[in-house]
């Protein structure tokens, strides 16, 4: 098994496991301002990913990530399926075309993915969604460097998710609640933070990790 094969399996398993481990927390966040299905929906999707792991693990990283995206689109069953699905498909496509994972590739992939998500979800930053984590993290990614890069990205993801607590939802089902959506963290922002942290943790566990 080559390094890239191992990375495909290890990185994707790390992401899937962290989401599955937080299913109750995500569902509770969604119960407060949505329809209480974010955790169980993502769990269904990532369990389907784990079931296909033997097929996915032999793919190069980019193709593997795209396959994760296609699986989420098919199995999640809520709006988070197409949204996270597209995120993985687009990032996978960029990684596959570039052949390497470097900062330039990730920034381009992130920009492209965020554009797609804004169009698909008809949303933008400041509306209490996953974009309120993804966009600040992309900004961070442009400038961080050296050994503190990954911890810094993780901190930014965390503070950005926290920053959705006082926001009023302007999109998705939480928008029905208007002002009442204040005081709760957005479940999509939290799941984005969890996934980004899992990626940072995994990359840190590899020797010589930096950006």
């Amino acid at each position, binding site marked *: 098994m080559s390094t890239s094969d191992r990375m495909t399996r290890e990185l994707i398993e790390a992401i899937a496991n962290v989401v599955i481990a937080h299913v109750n927390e995500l569902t509770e966040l969604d119960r407060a301002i949505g*329809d209480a*299905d974010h955790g*169980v*929906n993502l769990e*269904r999707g990532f369990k389907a990913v784990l079931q296909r792991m033997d097929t996915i693990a032999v793919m190069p990283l980019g193709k593997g990530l795209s396959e994760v995206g296609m699986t989420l*689109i*098919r*199995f*999640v*069953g*809520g*709006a*988070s*399926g*197409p*949204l996270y*699905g597209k995120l993985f498909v687009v990032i996978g496509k960029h990684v596959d075309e570039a052949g390497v994972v470097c900062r330039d590739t990730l920034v381009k992939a992130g920009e492209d993915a965020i554009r797609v998500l804004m169009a*698909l*979800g008809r949303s933008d930053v400041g509306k209490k969604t996953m974009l309120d984590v993804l966009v600040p993290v992309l900004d961070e990614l442009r400038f961080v460097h050296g050994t503190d890069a990954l911890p810094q990205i993780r901190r930014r993801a965390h503070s950005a998710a926290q920053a959705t607590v006082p926001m009023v939802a302007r999109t*998705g*089902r939480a928008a029905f609640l208007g002002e009442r959506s204040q005081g709760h963290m957005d479940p999509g922002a939290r799941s984005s933070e969890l996934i980004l942290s899992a990626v940072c943790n995994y990359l840190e566990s590899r020797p010589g990790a930096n950006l």
Partner: protein
Amino acid sequence: MNRNVGIVIVSHSPDVAKGAADMVRQMVGKEVPLAWCGGNPDGGLGTSVDAIEKALQTAWSDRGVVIMVDMGGAETNSEMAIERLPDKKRAKVVVCNAPIVEGSVMAATESSGGSPLEKVRRAAEELYPRM
């Protein structure tokens, strides 16, 4: 080839989708190609891209298909299903921004008179007041 625009009803709840479809059938009989789906891939409340794709095949008409949705994921997943269609078919499917039950009945009534896709969509969307 079906001569009328098809209707696909997508709800988080299979009961809602089937109920709306029953009302449409009673209104317009077999004049309009019709399919419904509801529930996530495990059978709970939610929607499924695969099921929407199948419903699009069932209700396919070369004059086009309108998809009636209830909320959130039903719309996003419908757009995903449309995106997976071949280019030629993709341009003939629209997601309709209308209340699912009344909108389905209005769209089907319009379709049963032989109206084109855009007119069928508008008949349903007029149920929502203009913003």
